């Protein structure tokens, strides 16, 4: 299965959630700034990268984890991509889109805007790091829900195979 964590720029919340999913970041405590900054794609993507699916890693269930920036499309992004998959004749059950925007706080929005849009990396990065640490437990809860869903689906598949 392919899991695509998506947020406005694909630089902060989606990257953080993907890293928690892959156990690159701890699932029980807030990480240090250096840990966040060392993540691949963290505070690194620019406007022309929006839309690109960036591979982050493979989780313990064998699912491929990606991050993407979707700008202001909100939940529309998933609807558009699912429609595209249906037209292309691809089984859209193979892909899970996870919107991380509802878990983002104002600090992350302001910091992300200053760092990515205005080019004020130093100030913006500090604010976004503070915001990410404050919202960190929300991302842990989100990833927990995603993994529960994956386990349920795996269980259903097993039941179908047995019957």
């Amino acid at each position, binding site marked *: 299965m*392919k899991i695509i964590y998506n947020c406005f720029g694909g630089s902060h919340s989606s990257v953080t959630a993907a890293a928690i999913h892959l156990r690159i970041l701890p699932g029980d405590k807030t990480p240090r700034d250096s840990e966040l900054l060392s993540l691949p794609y963290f505070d690194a993507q620019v406007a022309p990268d929006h*839309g*690109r699916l960036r591979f982050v890693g493979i989780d313990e269930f064998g699912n491929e984890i990606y991050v993407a920036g979707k700008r202001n499309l909100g939940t529309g992004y998933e609807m*558009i*991509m699912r429609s*595209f998959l249906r*037209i292309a004749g*691809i089984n859209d059950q193979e892909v899970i889109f996870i919107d991380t925007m509802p878990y983002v706080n104002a600090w992350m929005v302001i910091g992300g805007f200053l760092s990515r849009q205005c080019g004020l990396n130093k100030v913006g990065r500090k604010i976004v790091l503070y915001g990410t640490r404050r919202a960190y437990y929300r991302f842990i809860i989100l990833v927990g829900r995603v993994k529960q869903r994956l386990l349920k689906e795996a269980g259903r598949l097993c039941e179908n195979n047995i019957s």
Partner: protein
Amino acid sequence: MKIIFLDQLGCYVSVAAASYLAGKIYRNAKAAEVACLPFFAAHRDLKVGRFYYIGQDPKGNELYTLGAGGQARLIILSARDLIKILENKDIIVLVDVSQERSLFFKVVALLKLFWPLEKAAVYLAALALVRLMPGLAAKMDLKMNWEPLDAHSMIKDN
């Protein structure tokens, strides 16, 4: 091959472009002909992600329209990567027509939702498309803004 036309809601410029390739209208079409096209101004809200099957072109290619909001370029990039990840072998072409008078069609799409203005909005959109048709038809003939998502173009990309 599948050809997907992208615009704001998948039912204005994209329908005209796909219908032109399907041979349902010509470059000198009248407003009434455009307004009567299947799925023209078919939206009942402003939700993106809806798609419509328009028909086939003379070569047998399937023509679709898809509402991509104001981010057709971003959707093309995502679709390209997704096709690559899922290792799809079919050839799909994405055509971005969302830049054609985008603000005008956004306003018309909004007006269409208000009952007394519904018919006027559709007619206004059709009139605008009549003026756009020669240019749009030329772009379709020249295959401008066509983004093929096939193995060959992806190898070139990398």
